[in-house]
């Protein structure tokens, strides 16, 4: 038998106002009443999502035990977004949340919109939409936190009341001296959810800062937190762990994979490279020179970036962009473009397409093929059909109904689904376990999103990832040197963001690679610059490892999960 609370006298609090004292006693009593119902809105989305007990428990705990204000700190891949979606849907269904603001890193804005719309049937506008009219003009907004913090936007964000505020990747709020923290701490919202797989990254004061946003005062002041819970001045070791756990349980949910039994099968990666033909290398060289020349005279242009990426995909994709450039007044290089188009049109053999045909014959199961370009997609569909395979195209221009049909046909009877990246976010394709990257985006998050379509909860097989490249080309280099370095294809779902955030550079990796390629006058400079980028990436990987280790060490001392018996 344990007896608690006798220390009330040791702490010697002053006598309370009678009315407040009475309310305290009533609150203790009323807090033990069991809620009557479970989730009221679950019937609206249960057919679209495979719900797991830890997710439902997390949402129930947020709603019933945490007052709708919590940090969802599950380990990566356990569905924090789903948990947030359940809470959001529940608050909406109960009529409690009308104005909702979701702040995320810029690269996740689209993904959040798709997930909420497809899985929960909740529509949002994003700051990237053409008809976005400002932070004071829409009831439900998903926006990049860095856009929201801009002075002109911050005033509008703070000028209104929000029912629900969700901050994804909430570890970006680790430091109180940042504009992000300042913005979020000033937003008035009834309900608040912060999502992060790594609530602490460098020291435990970050945990204090984060909790302070959710429940100011729960951990005392910064100074009392230091005194009571930190065992060293660097803030890396804890004391009074059980007391801290009790308090954290009021605001943090942290499910671990080992407790949920939802570990992911391994990923196996294979790279198939082939030596291209003379014409292909000629087209590569000519295009590289053209891009470099244009970059010198006009600086960064999206069309040049596109062309650079299309080089690695197919002549068909290149031709289309060249023709568009020819028609526009942006680039004045008519004769050169004509030559390039002629060269591309004269190519009869596409080595990578031949390579994928060979591979396709060897697959004994359904597989996905990703390309970034519609023209390449058409080429691949033709090739697969010639092989007698039932190949289904999937791209962003399909209507929602046709998308559903395409996925259903792939699930039921087709052999291969050829997808472009646009429109494929949020798909659940875990019934398939082979992914072929016909060409590779230079944005690693996009690559991870591709793999994430099949390597997710519910996948029963080892996942095979096949990457294709033409030897001695830029993509070959990016694939082997950069992507291998950040272990892009092997890291667990969700970890890529952590690695990339450690790069701490204002530019995306994609743009950095492009600029190196376009600015380098010769191969030697190009290699030197790419090697320097590789070093930065290595540091990013090491930093991310350190963060993961520290976070795991801290949270191994707590039990904050929602899994029974964990």
């Amino acid at each position, binding site marked *: 038998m344990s007896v608690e609370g006798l220390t009330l006298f040791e702490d010697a609090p002053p006598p309370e*106002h009678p009315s*407040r004292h009475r309310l*305290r006693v009533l609150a203790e009593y*009323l807090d*033990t009443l069991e809620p009557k119902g479970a989730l009221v809105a679950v019937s609206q989305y249960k057919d679209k999502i495979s719900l797991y007990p830890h997710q439902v428990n997390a949402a129930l705990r947020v*709603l019933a035990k945490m007052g709708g204000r919590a940090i969802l700190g599950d380990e990566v891949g356990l569905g924090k977004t789903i948990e947030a979606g359940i809470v959001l849907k529940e608050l909406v269904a109960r009529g409690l949340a009308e104005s909702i603001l979701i702040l995320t890193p810029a690269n996740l804005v689209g993904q959040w919109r798709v997930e909420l719309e497809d899985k929960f049937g909740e529509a949002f506008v994003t700051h990237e939409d053409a008809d976005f009219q400002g932070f004071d003009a829409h009831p439900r907004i998903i926006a990049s936190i860095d856009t929201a913090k801009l002075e002109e936007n911050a005033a509008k964000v703070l000028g209104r009341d929000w029912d629900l505020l969700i901050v994804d990747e909430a570890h970006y709020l680790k430091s109180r001296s940042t504009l992000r923290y300042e913005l979020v701490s000033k937003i008035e919202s*009834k309900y608040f959810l912060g999502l992060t797989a790594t609530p602490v990254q460098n020291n435990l004061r970050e945990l204090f800062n984060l909790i302070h946003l959710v429940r100011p005062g729960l951990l005392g002041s910064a100074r009392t937190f230091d005194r009571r819970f930190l065992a060293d001045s660097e803030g890396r070791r804890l004391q009074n762990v059980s007391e801290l756990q009790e308090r954290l349980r009021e605001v943090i949910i942290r499910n671990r994979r080992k407790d949920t039994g939802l570990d992911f099968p391994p990923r196996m990666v294979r790279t198939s490279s082939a030596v291209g033909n003379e014409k292909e290398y000629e087209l590569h060289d000519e295009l590289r020179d053209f891009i470099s020349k244009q970059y010198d005279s006009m600086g960064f242009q999206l069309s040049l970036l596109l062309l650079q990426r299309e080089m690695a995909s197919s002549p068909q994709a290149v031709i289309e962009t060249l023709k568009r450039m020819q028609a526009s007044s942006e680039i004045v290089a008519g004769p050169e473009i004509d030559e390039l188009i002629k060269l591309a049109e004269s190519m009869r053999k596409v080595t990578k397409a031949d390579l994928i045909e060979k591979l396709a014959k060897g697959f004994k199961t359904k597989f996905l093929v990703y390309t970034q370009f519609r023209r390449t997609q058409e080429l691949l569909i033709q090739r697969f059909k010639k092989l007698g395979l039932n190949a289904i195209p999937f791209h962003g221009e399909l209507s929602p109904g046709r998308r559903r049909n395409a996925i259903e046909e792939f699930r039921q009877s087709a052999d291969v689904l050829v997808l472009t990246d646009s429109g494929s976010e949020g798909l659940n394709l875990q019934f398939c376990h082979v992914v072929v990257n016909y060409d590779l985006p230079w944005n690693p998050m996009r690559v991870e999103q591709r793999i994430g379509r099949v390597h997710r909860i519910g996948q029963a097989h080892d996942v095979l990832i096949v990457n294709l490249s033409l030897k001695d080309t830029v993509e070959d280099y990016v694939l082997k040197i950069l992507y291998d370095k950040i272990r892009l294809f092997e890291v667990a779902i969700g970890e890529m963001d952590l690695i990339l955030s450690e790069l701490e550079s204002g530019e995306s990796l994609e743009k950095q690679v492009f600029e190196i390629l376009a600015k380098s006058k010769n191969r030697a400079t190009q290699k030197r610059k790419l090697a320097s980028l590789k070093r930065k990436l290595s540091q990013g990987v090491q930093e991310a490892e350190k963060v993961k280790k520290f976070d795991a060490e801290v949270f191994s001392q707590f039990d904050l999960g929602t899994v029974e018996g964990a």
Partner: protein
Amino acid sequence: MDARASLQRFVLDYLDEIGAEIRDEGGVHAVLFPTGFRRRYGRERRITFDPEKRREQVEVIEAGSPFLKLLLTDAKAWGPLSVYPTDAYPAGSRFYTFQLEAYSSARKRTRFAWALLEWGHNEPVVHEGIPPVFDARPADAARASGDLGDLRAGLDVVMPAIEGMGRAFAQEAVAESRDAFAKSMERVGDYFKSLHQDTHLEEARIRKRLGEIQSKLYFTEDGLRELKLQREQERLTDELHALKKKHTQAQETMSGERVKQADLLRRRHEPKLRIRLIAATICRAPKAARPQRTTQATLLPVGNSDVASGEAAAAGGA
């Protein structure tokens, strides 16, 4: 106590306490929060206690509703000790409110209890529930200091009675745990028994075959067949030997494993009783009334209230 009525009384009293403005619009209450509480609760909320009035932007206050949870959490951060104005008991009487939690392996049971130590009495009286004096708002809101040493000393007097009540309350959990433990042990016993049986069956099969061989060897006159039977006999004898060895090892492992399992189950099914003191209160005469006896309670100066001090007050002590 009717839960819905209690909830309503608590919420309205709480909102009044923090200085929120409440407008009753036919069963729906529009609540406007004072500035210091807006980051915590928002600027305005609309609430109702009647589930039939559930609609957009109106939160039904019932067990489990998020807003109620916020209020409960904040109220629980307020002080556990108080000098309380009441006519119900003589000034100087003390009462202690406890939460009893009995855990079996299957469920948790919660009960509230309170012990009254009336002025001049040495024997506490214990009751279930929470003190009825808290049913209504206090006769006056003045904050007073009191002899907390006296309050502390009274706790030692009431604890044995409360522990006795706790033990009686936990009996059900103890019985439930005992049954669950017995059932689990029965399952463990069955499991190990079946492992033993498997080994014995295998041993019996080999012994039977050895008997058959022995009998055949006795009658056979065919040299080649005799040789074959001898070889099989040797093989089976080796197998039996190995099986016995394995059996002995398995016995040792199983017995260790069984002890471990039993220990694990015992811990899992161990019933627990937790007694939490949630409030200690000393009575004083209401401000307007003449005190019945002299107590050490002294009223603090007017203006000491921190009702309007906003968030710090709500989160204070959390």
